[in-house]
Each structure stands twice: as structure tokens, then as C-alpha cells.
């Protein structure tokens, strides 16, 4: 295996394009997406359903079903090595060891016919060549680390015998087992109650601090993003519409969509009357409008927005970009 360049950025995605061939036409799920992740950093990829965030994550992990998916262009560089250009055999060694993933629904992500101890241990027997006995010891260790009470006896239990929160802890244990450099968490708390969500996010942050890995958090939950993210990339209709630090994006969003999203979010503090609602619906990915995909719903849209080419990524300052013709104005004055 070629030497990994420790000085190159941890993850660098450039111009990723993924499409799906469906019966209704070609769906452009990911269009020219750029992402950056530095070691020890938490990047939140924020978007609603149909934004392409999950497909992006799956493309990075290399778990897309191709066909019907097709990566038409782009590079995903892990410390300088392009994962997309690698042969599958080499790529497989990166999964779980260098980049691991936590899925949304632990119940369907875990195999119901094997004990959790076996499933966690499998990572060690397969990737580290450990014996079953040693792997089991490691499983108990990890379960204790993610604070599952009674780990020594619960290691022989099956996934359905755990609650939703506990299952998510098991997924986290599996994700950190081989001490990867990057953890991708795809909506890890969406299916959980709010009190359990708080526990899991706290655990995830702690694990990340302990291992020093980078975390990519895929979510639509603005609250969760505000709590843990260092940087945010906002996605809409397969494009990244905004990059920035968490504070920047929340305080002075640079894109009308982000602005609309923040305004339409129900809050515990502040005004409790009528919510602002972004009118209309996200476009169907087989029929994306010309120009800016958000233009049909944008209160700020003008003629230039509705015609091709789509707005370029405007760099406002270092590492702060927005795909809006009026980005500077939006940052300074808001949208309405």
C-alpha cells in the first residue's frame, strides 16, 4: 500500500457528481459537491430530504449501489489518496479501519441473528486477525467505553433485546472499534427520543475527543448541528449552497435557503407565534429548474437567478462561501 501522506488534509472532496438512473429519468442526486474535513474537526452536512447529503456520505464510504447510482466525476481524497480511483480491494481496507459509518436506524443496520458481541468482535477477527476469544474481550471493553451497563453479560444479547438508545451506542462502539480517522454519522439521533438524543450526542462528542478522529455529521436537525459542529456545509438539491463555521452560518447565513431554514425552525426561546415557512417544495431531482435550484422558492430571486448558469460559489472570506448571486447582501442585510 502506498504511504499515506500525514500532512495532506484529512478528507477533501472535490466536484463530486452522482446520478441515479430511474424509470422516471436521470436523477442528479449530487452536483459538484466540495467538502473539507480536517483532523479533530466536526463537519456538519446540513440538508433536508432530497438534498443529496446521504448519497454524498455513501459515495465517500463507497457503499453506493452502482447501478443504479453512477459517480460521473469527482475525487474523494483521504490524506491525498483518491478513494474513487482505488481498486475495490484496496478500498475495502479503508472501510471500518480508516473511515467508519454510523447509520440512522440501528435496528436494521445490525444483523438480528448474531449477538452484538459477535458483530463487534467481527471487526477484530476480520481486520486484525484476532482470535474469537480476544475479539470478545475487546467487544466488552468497547461496550463499557460507550457506557452500556452490564457489558460483560450483555455482550451475548441480540440487537432486539436493546433499546433504541442502547443500539445506537453499539453502533458507535462498532464505529470507533478500529480507531478510524474519520467517522461519518448519518442522522444518528433522528429516530431517538430527545432525552436519549442528548445522551448519544454527548457520547459521540466524547468519543471523538478521545480518538481525535474527524466527524462528518449528516443531519437535518439544526439544533444538533449547533451543539456539536465546528463547520457546516448546507446542501440543497444536490449542491452545497453554503460553507462556513457553525457560528458564522447561524449568526449571518449567506444563502437565502439557510436563512429560510433558520427562520422556519420552531424554537424554545424567542417568539412563539407564527413560523416563517419557505413556500413551495424542493425540486424533484429528475427535473431540477435552470439556474439556481432554489430560485422558485426564494424571496430574493431575480431574473439572473432563474437562468443558467447556476450561481457560482462566491468566496466571501477565507473558507466562507455561498452559491448565491447576492451572497454579500444576504450576509450583511438578510433576505427580506
Amino acid at each position, binding site marked *: 500500500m502506498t504511504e499515506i501522506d500525514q500532512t495532506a488534509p484529512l478528507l477533501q472532496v472535490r466536484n463530486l457528481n452522482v446520478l441515479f438512473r430511474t*424509470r*422516471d429519468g436521470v436523477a442528479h442526486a449530487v452536483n459538484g459537491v466540495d467538502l473539507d474535513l480536517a483532523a479533530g474537526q466536526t463537519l456538519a452536512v446540513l440538508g433536508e430530504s432530497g438534498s443529496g447529503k446521504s448519497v454524498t456520505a455513501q459515495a465517500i464510504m463507497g457503499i453506493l449501489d452502482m447501478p443504479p447510482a453512477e459517480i460521473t466525476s469527482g475525487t474523494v481524497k483521504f490524506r491525498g489518496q483518491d478513494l474513487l480511483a482505488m481498486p475495490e480491494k484496496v478500498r475495502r481496507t479503508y472501510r471500518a479501519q480508516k473511515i467508519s459509518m454510523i447509520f440512522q436506524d440501528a435496528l436494521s443496520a445490525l444483523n438480528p441473528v448474531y449477538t452484538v458481541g459477535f458483530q463487534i468482535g467481527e471487526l477484530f477477527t476480520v481486520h486484525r486477525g484476532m482470535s474469537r476469544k480476544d475479539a470478545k474481550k475487546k467487544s466488552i471493553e468497547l461496550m463499557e467505553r460507550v457506557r452500556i451497563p452490564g457489558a460483560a453479560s450483555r455482550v451475548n444479547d441480540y440487537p432486539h433485546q436493546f433499546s433504541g438508545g442502547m443500539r445506537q451506542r453499539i453502533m458507535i462502539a462498532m464505529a470507533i472499534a478500529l480507531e478510524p480517522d474519520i467517522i461519518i454519522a448519518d442522522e444518528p439521533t433522528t429516530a431517538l427520543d430527545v432525552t436519549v438524543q442528548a445522551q448519544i450526542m454527548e457520547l459521540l462528542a466524547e468519543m471523538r475527543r478521545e480518538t481525535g478522529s474527524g466527524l462528518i455529521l449528516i443531519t437535518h436537525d439544526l439544533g444538533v448541528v449547533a451543539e456539536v459542529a465546528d463547520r457546516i456545509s448546507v446542501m440543497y438539491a444536490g449542491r452545497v449552497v453554503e460553507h462556513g463555521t457553525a457560528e458564522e452560518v447561524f449568526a449571518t447565513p449567506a444563502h437565502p435557503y439557510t436563512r429560510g431554514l433558520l427562520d422556519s425552525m420552531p424554537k424554545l426561546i424567542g417568539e412563539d407565534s407564527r413560523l416563517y415557512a419557505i*413556500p*413551495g*417544495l*424542493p*425540486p*424533484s431531482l429528475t*427535473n*431540477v*429548474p435552470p439556474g439556481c*435550484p*432554489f*430560485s*422558485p*422558492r426564494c424571496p430574493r430571486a431575480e431574473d439572473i437567478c*432563474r437562468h443558467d448558469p447556476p450561481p457560482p460559489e462566491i468566496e466571501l472570506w477565507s473558507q466562507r462561501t455561498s452559491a448565491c448571486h447576492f451572497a454579500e447582501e444576504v450576509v450583511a442585510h438578510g433576505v427580506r
Partner: protein
Amino acid sequence: MSDPDAFAALGTIHDAPGGPEAAVTGPGRTLAGDAWETLRSSWVFWGSLVLIAFFVVMAAFPGLFTHVDPASCQAARARVEPSSSAWFGYDVQGCDVYARTIYGARASIVVGTIATLTAMTLGSTVGIYAGFFGGLVDSLLSRLTDIFFAIPLLLGSIIILTSIPTPTGSAFFSILKVSLALAALGWTSTARVARSSVIQVKQADFVSASRALGASRTWMIRKHIVPNAIAPVIVITTISLGSFIGAEATLSYLGIGLQPPVISWGIAINDAAPYVRSTPHMLFFPALFLSLTVLAFISLGDVVREALDPKAM
């Protein structure tokens, strides 16, 4: 007072793609319509449909395929090989094999159809009641289904068919007897499929919504349960048509199915079997037609099942 602008705002985003209209694709497209789209482009679908149509026409209008009378047999021609005058040769009694094969289609397909329709009606009714009502009704009906399931097809048919005397010479009664005997033993798989399909549909919210509106149970079964539960039943029906035709052939081969003067493929195979080593042509052609028919129905059932599978939509 309500805010008219809220509704107006929603209304103005009409024609631009990305507006609310964008999500509503095309004219009303049912799930059956979606299935049709899949089927239309499948060569297996068209192939099996053409084959089935071919055999159905053969069954309905055998005169289109041959002018020879299948009943005119001459002992002198017994077991003669195929030639240009008789494409399939002659059978053990000197009858034209080609003519008997053509005419044999009718009995086989009619038996298959009657058996299937009876089994489907009986099985669906039992399955729907068992699935929808649950509890004691379900227990009783399911045990009944299990009992019938446990009876081996051949053993059961032999008992039924030998205990009911057939007035000799009545082709119609013979066909009916065999069809109903097969249906009486074959309804159980339809019942099981219908029951599990109904149980699954019963749990959906739209059924609860209907109940919350005050719908009667008959209404719910008719409007909500049956239309959504019917797909797997259609599939198993199409497949079982093929197996009923095959079962009839088995019974006739054993001599307890259709009786002369009825002409069927099973009977033809029965007659030809002892001579398969010396004059295989007598067995080969009826067997070929039988296999093709069964294959056509089973393929059709398979491709319809794939098309109706909601996961593919």
C-alpha cells in the same frame, strides 16, 4: 380571521419546476398503471402472453389448426412415425397425434381454469376472513387450512375421484369432477397468501382512519383491504393455473383423471407412456405442449409478481 395570503402564497408557485406542482407527476397513475409500465417492456411478459393466447385459441377453435378428426382412428396406422401427411405421427390406436394434441388443449386448459377460479374464490374468502377478523375465527379457519394443506394432492385426488362415480360418456361431468377435486385440495396456498396479505394491510394507518370515520367492517374490507391485499393473490393464482394443468395431466396419466371420450394431454401421455422407448413421438408432442403451457403461465405469474412488487416502484 384567516390569512388569505398564506394560501395565496402557496397558490402562486404554480408552473415553475420546484414548485408544489413539481411533485405531482403526470396524470393519475395508479399502482396498476405503474405495474403495466414495467410489464410493457418485458419480453418475458409478451412471450408468455403470446404463448398463452396461442393455446387458448387452440382450445377454443381447434378447427383452425387441423381438419383431421381426432376420433377417427385406424388400427392399421397404429404407432406410425411422423411424416409429411401426419406431422406428429399416429398414436397407439391409430389416431392422428397432431389432431389429438390440438384438441387436447381444450380439456387441459378448461380444467386448469375452472380449478383455478374455484380455488381462488374459496381460498381468498377463507384467507380474508381469517386475516381480517383474527381471534377465534382465524384460529378455526387456519386449522381448517392446515388440515387441507396436509392432505397429499395425489392421495386426496384418488380418494375423491374414485369415490364419485362418473356417468360414462359424459365429457362435461368428467371435466367438472376433476376441476373441483383439484380445487378442493389446492385452495389452501391461496388462503395462506390472502391471510398474510390481509394481516399486513390491516395494520396500515389508512385502515384505522377509515374505522375512525365510522366505516363498517364490510366497507373496510371492500374498499381498503381487498384492493391492497389482492396483488399477492393474483400472483399465486397465475402461477397455480400452470400447476393445476400439470396436476390434471398427472391424474389423467394415472387413469383417475379425465376419462375417454375426453381428449387431453394427460390422457395422450398416459396412452403413449409404455411405448416411449420404441415410438417416442406419441409421447413427445403432447408432453411438449403441456410443458409449454405450464411454463407460459408460471412465467407470466412470475413477471406479474415482480411488476406488482411495491419495492420496485
